[in-house]
């Protein structure tokens, strides 16, 4: 830890300071240092999307960003967006349509889906499929996930929340 660096960042609204190894990935920092195990590690090379997080409002791969790069940033995880209820409509739709089986991809999938919901545009099923095409799910075959996101988007657009 000779080259350890001090970082301070906001995670789910709470400021945290830690001394971290420069090589530590942001997702490992969240999991191992903060105990926020909801962001999952699936491939560690940026393909599967299981570690999708929100940093300063943009979704990123927690395995492609170093913890030190998040110094001064605002990081939001599945736990934070669950507690704030921001994800509640998607979580409800995923639940009702069984848009998850093992649940390992689900936090990342919800983070990616919420990014689309926040854009507030009317989109087609194919556009939904394209938006989540960086998130791997081995269980569902994706259709139920697309259904769930489509339903939330429809409701959000109708209610003008977008």
């Amino acid at each position: 830890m000779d080259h350890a660096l001090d970082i301070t960042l906001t995670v789910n609204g709470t400021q945290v300071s830690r001394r971290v190894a420069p090589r530590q990935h942001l997702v490992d920092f969240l999991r191992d240092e903060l105990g926020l195990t909801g962001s999952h590690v699936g491939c560690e090379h940026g393909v599967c999307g299981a570690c999708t997080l929100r940093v300063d409002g943009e979704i990123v791969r927690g395995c492609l960003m170093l913890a030190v790069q998040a110094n001064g940033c605002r990081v939001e995880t599945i736990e934070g967006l669950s507690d704030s209820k921001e994800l509640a409509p998607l979580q409800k739709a995923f639940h009702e349509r069984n848009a998850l089986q093992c649940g390992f991809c689900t936090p990342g999938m919800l983070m990616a889906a919420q990014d689309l919901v926040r854009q507030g545009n009317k989109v087609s099923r194919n556009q939904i499929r394209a938006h989540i095409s960086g998130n791997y799910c081995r269980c569902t075959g994706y259709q139920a996930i697309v259904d769930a996101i489509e339903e939330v988007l429809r409701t959000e657009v109708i209610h003008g929340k977008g």
Partner: protein
Amino acid sequence: MGKAELPLHAPGTQLDRGYIGQSVPRPNLQRLLQGRGAFIDDLRFPRLAHVAFFRSPYAHARIKRLDFSKALKQPGIIGVFDGRAVAEYCTPWVAVLAHLKGIKSPPQHAIAIERACSQGEACAAVVAESRSQAEDAVGLIEAEWEELPVVVDMEEALQGKTLVHEDFDDNVCFRRELDTEGAAAAFERADVVVEDTFHFGRHTGVCLEGRAILADYNAGEHSLTVYHATQAPHMMQDIFSRHLNIPEANVRVITKDVGGSFGIKVHVYPDEMATAALSVMLRRPVKFVADRLESFLSDIHCREHRVRVRLACTKSGEILAFDLDDLTAIGPYSVYPRTSGIEGNQVVNLTGGPYRHREYRARLNVVFTNKNVTCQYRAVGHPIAVALTEGIVDLAAQKLGMDPAEFRRRNLIADDAYPYTFPSGIKFEKLSHHQCLEKLLAVMNYRELRAEQERLRNKNIYRGIGLAAMIEVTNPSPAFYGVGGARISAQDGATLRLEPTGMVTVMCSVTEQGQGTEAIFAQIAASAVGVSLEKIRVITGDTGVTPYGGGTWASRGAGIGGEAVLQAGRALRANILEVAAAILTLDRQELDVQRNQVINLLTGEVKLALAELGRVAYFRPDTLPLEFQSELTVTRHYTPRQYGFTFTNGIQASLVEVDADTGFVRLLGHWCVEDSGTVINPMLADEQLRGGIVQGIGAALYEECLYDPDGQLLNGNMADYLVPMAAEMPDIVCAHVETPTRQSQLGAKGVGEAGTAGAPAAVMNAINDALAPLGGARVTRMPFTPERILDGIARARSRA
């Protein structure tokens, strides 16, 4: 689950009919939706040590020397161990089964001792305070190797000029021949004989969660608690006990959330056994989670078959016989304890399965190579058997100029022909091929699609429609593994307990890996006892808690575990009525349990809430007659025994468009009609089909573990090994025919593997149907990459 905003039942659910057949959302999903699950890597333990493995860079090499001195000096290192050190604590295993006559495999150690037989085989273990420290030290192990000749190609393996194991005379792990004796004559008298050779790429499961184990040895008790991402906790309890020499009663296997398994997590892996041994050696908890590269190298692979198949039929389109010759390569070891002979054996058992021919000849060779091991992955053998059958059936129909649907209609076993014994010896209780075919053609609007296909061909748009009828092994009896000597339970058990509050706790030996086991058990238990769904809590995946049983594999959870839950639920209801009769001093025949209450059966009058019954039974039994003892915990077990397997059947269709210039395949639609007996939860059954179909599409179009001639895996990462992603997948229409099995009261058969069984064949046939106008171009080597499709088109053009 919290006081959820979520409904406990889907819109339209009718509670008065019980929950069976209702699309009830899974009650246990909240934690997964909030990122608050308990996957192995989420668990936090004091003094937890982490292991990383030093893996062979060679496909075949003798370990001449391992030098750990630099590794041992690294910060955080607890220990570095070679194969001999670990073997002191963990005995080797040999994966054979008595009913697979002649199968052989050499002893396999947790850590290779003298020789690595495939790239990625663990040759040393480094234990450290963190995973990164362990990995750093792995990089500092110095090894001296003597490279040995490698066998990579399975045809060469069969010839046996170079041996994978010097102790054997050849590279054949298992061989099987089957002949109904009339096959040769049938081929002679046939009007039409068609033949083709199909190749199935080696692929793997790619569970999003890597294999994971956390073993915690307590030296004070000589006990081992293993948190294990496994499908078969009791099987693993037995194996840890026997190979680590710890009494079985001192071994507890706990399976919490599992991030996908699909058969990958039902086998014994050397690195996982080593992890358990290291916990014993170090007297502290040790964790191993396979990273993505390790997963590609060391999770079981599957398939890799080359099969020549022939079909004989009359000119009127009656199939007379099938003949097949299957060669499959399994890597250097048969995988423990299920063996690697099963997949090929299933190909022999199942090929031709939906059809009514009486003659059959098959030959199977299962050979050793110096690639990673293969074993049972979702649908085991079925994708190959179905693709062979349906591929050659389509070729026969094409040769006869007959519509593929009509050709199948003429040859599928009649729906009134059951019970039926197929020429390979397997027995069908009751199938519904014709109902499924007709339903499929209606649901997909087959005729219209054919007409559209014809119209588009005139515009040089090449669409294809592929059909794939199938049979599937589900609810296996002890004939699958037990008779061969494997300590794998075909039986499952369920314990139901009425709690003092009127809640019902269900404990079942079948595990949950996301398929919805716990949800359907809740539905069955609530219906059987007479309570509403929110009164049920289900516990699975703990050998210290649940009854003994087999777990999750071979599409058995609903049919076997579900029946045990049903039987236990009915028994509990009867016992509840005994208690109610004692409390109320009424005849129990007058009483029933409905909606969490004891009621008068005739008048419907509410007599007693279950919460009140529980209070009296547990806290005031002094008020009950002296001779009366309430029994509000019951256990029941179930094993299917009348048939070796409870076969299901179904049929799939795929609609594709092939770009003749680029070779790209676009999936436009996919349909599946499945008969899995009683459907307990239609939504979950459909989702099993859809997920399975997409895995089958992966095998058909994208997935292949590519090796170079030295046995090096070329694409062991998710950028180079392609998996189905959302953008390329079609919407999938599912429909059901319900023919309940009469072996059980529940009537459920399995549904988890049907999608994967039939999808590759349907996609293959659709592609070849699309290519047909292009000079009869044809592809038979999965996965059907654009390159292979363009090759197929080029070959056809050069023939023309």
